């Protein structure tokens, strides 16, 4: 019986998985087809969303672009697959995409059961609550009995249920698949509050009919390290994606920006020389050109530039660096040495 229970579902999905290619050499596959297929959110302002001209913009988009710059020397060689919270892991598992940069939280079960490898976190987030100011609520602890708009298929559903259980409060969730539909229902007053990662709430508030009418409550109820992910079983590809993110962090620490990078090529600092491939070694170790890190910073920028451009205080999202500052500034962004 147990065997039967295992085979029936297997039959169901075997059609899609049966066709998936051998996953050993993602780098070779990517080079052969000439671009990176990146799974992104597609509807999240500041992280991944096409602008009015159809150009993809956002922190997650720039992360995928950094990988393309490292592999091809051209950050534009990325094709984007917009994925829902539900389909994202399946898309990666089945080989439909090469890398997942879709504000996905790293967790133990995803790292193991799902067969994924998460790399360096590109945004440290936490789940919060967005409420209309008119509701007159100052703290999440006053939300007993509230209707809560929740995006499905994320850790958010579980976190919010846990939080209300611990606080011995009741909630009535309204779960809608698409961010756009959910936001519309929330702005129309279907729910008292909306819960998601704080960065996402900031993005949703930015597109509200009147952003000033809404506020994010101070309680952050979860740890959400958002990180790019790749499939299990291809260590070289994982290294490339991991160090593409780390290169942006290291560059910020070394003071290298897209503006000053050509001057920095003449730097006498051995750390900078190694980083930019002036003294070779790093590129060969990764299986890439020696100027891979140069290409990332020149074409995409360092982490600070990417952050400020997409989600920083001067953008509609108005997010502070906070946990995402460099470790030297009291944040968590820390890169191992590039040697």
């Amino acid at each position, binding site marked *: 019986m*147990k065997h039967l*229970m*295992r*085979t*029936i*579902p*297997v*039959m*169901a*999905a*075997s*059609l899609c*998985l*049966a066709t*998936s290619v051998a*996953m050993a050499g993602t780098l070779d596959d990517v080079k052969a087809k000439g671009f990176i297929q990146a799974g992104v959110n597609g509807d999240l302002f500041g992280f991944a969303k096409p602008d009015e001209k159809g150009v993809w913009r956002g922190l997650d988009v720039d992360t995928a672009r950094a990988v393309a710059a490292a592999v091809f020397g051209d950050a534009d060689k990325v094709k984007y697959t917009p994925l829902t*919270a*539900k389909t994202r*892991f*399946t898309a990666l*598992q089945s080989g439909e995409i090469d890398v997942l940069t879709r504000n996905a939280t790293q967790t133990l*079960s995803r790292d*193991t*059961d*799902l*067969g994924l490898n998460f790399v360096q976190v590109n945004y440290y987030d936490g789940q919060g609550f967005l409420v209309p100011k008119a*509701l007159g609520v100052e703290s999440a602890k006053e*939300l*007993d*009995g*509230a*209707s809560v708009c929740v995006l*499905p*298929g*994320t850790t958010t*559903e*579980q976190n*919010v*249920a*846990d939080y*209300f*259980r611990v606080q011995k409060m009741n*909630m*009535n*969730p*309204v*779960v*809608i*698949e*698409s961010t756009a*539909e*959910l936001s519309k*229902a929330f702005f*129309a*007053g*279907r729910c*008292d509050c909306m819960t998601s990662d704080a960065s996402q709430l900031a993005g949703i508030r930015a597109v509200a009919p009147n952003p000033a009418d809404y506020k994010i409550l101070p309680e952050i109820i979860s740890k959400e390290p958002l990180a790019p992910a790749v*499939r*299990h*079983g291809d260590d070289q590809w994982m290294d490339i994606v991991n160090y593409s993110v780390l290169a942006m962090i290291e560059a910020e620490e070394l003071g290298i920006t897209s503006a000053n990078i050509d001057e920095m090529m003449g730097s006498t600092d051995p750390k900078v020389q190694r980083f930019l491939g002036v003294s070779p070694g790093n590129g060969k170790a990764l299986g890439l050109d020696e100027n891979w890190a140069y290409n990332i910073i020149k074409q995409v920028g360092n982490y600070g530039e990417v952050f400020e451009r997409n989600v920083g205080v001067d953008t509609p999202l108005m997010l502070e660096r906070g946990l995402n500052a460099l470790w030297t500034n009291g944040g968590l962004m820390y890169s191992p040495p590039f040697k």
Partner: protein
Amino acid sequence: MQATTAPEKIPFLRDPTKRSILYQLVTMAGVALLGYYLINNTLINLERQSISTGFEFVEKEAAFEIGESLIDYSAADSYGKALLVGFLNTLIVSCIGIILTVVLGTILGIARLSTNWLLSKLAAAYIEVFQDIPVLLQLFFWYAFFYEILPGPRQALDLLPGVFLCNRGMIFGVPHYHPAFGYAAAAFVLSCIAVWFLRRWAIKRQDATGRTFPLFRASLLMLLGLPAIVWWLGGAPTEMNVPVLSGFNFKGGITISPEFTALLLGLVLYTAAFVAEVVRAGIQSVGKGQREAATSLGLRPGRVMHLIILPQALRVIVPPLTSQMLNLTKNSSLAVAIGYPDFVSVAGTTINQTGQAIEGVALIMIVYLIFSLSTSAFMNWYNKKIKLVER
């Protein structure tokens, strides 16, 4: 001479019976091989990506809340129970949806054939409009209609005493639990059985003596009267669980959510347009002479419809009606787009939290297969029952 008496030996491949058996065996082997290849390949792929498989997750704590549930459910219950909640939510929306669709579709179908020009054209316009707009758009429309038009709970419309309408749904009072209601429900079931026997007796008596019996009025009296008497004997409890505004929302009473209403409305209005066409086709398939003959025998128009037209029309109506019922059930999976926690929605959350996509999708397929097969089985039984008895 001998050759003509002995039966001629037919070569194996020329014998149509043996040949067809051979072809079937080859096809079956091919299908089995393909199946084995797919399963084996998937298992290997899953193994290599170290994705765990199996249904062990069903007993783990679900740890997520569900917006509406017919049974007691909390985040501390198992995934299995959460899936049951989703199953029941799909079941109730499909059952109510099918009943309303058949009623509305029949009315529309008959109206479409009405000799009244306005009525017939209105029905035609309805059918064209609702058939042509994708059902997902209709769902979005009704859902947006509810949350955009209706006020918040603090400004809820007080329709009747104890009945409130707001963007959280329709909230109304229900009687407090009392044993008398249980007895009344039992009395209702009893009177249903009694009515069934009464009907058999009435038909038998009419066949034997020709005397008719006012069956409808007597049945109605029994169905309503008996439970009412039992309720009165049980102490006539009238205490109500009335909803009151507390905090953000109403507490107490029963809430019919805008998600449920929007889904039900969208599905019923959409599918009824198709059912109306099915009903119209069925009625039109009955020859005009049948009606004229029945009328000339002196039957009243209601009786003509009931005794002559409908029994013949139903043979044409039932098979396509079954497929519309199945469509409604399957379309109810669009619930996830407007936030109603149906089986697909709950299974989706389960898949994401546990990562068991293959198992989850298999469960979804099995559940819809169960819904479809049981609807088909019932309708096939009904179809056989109404089949024209040829003498």
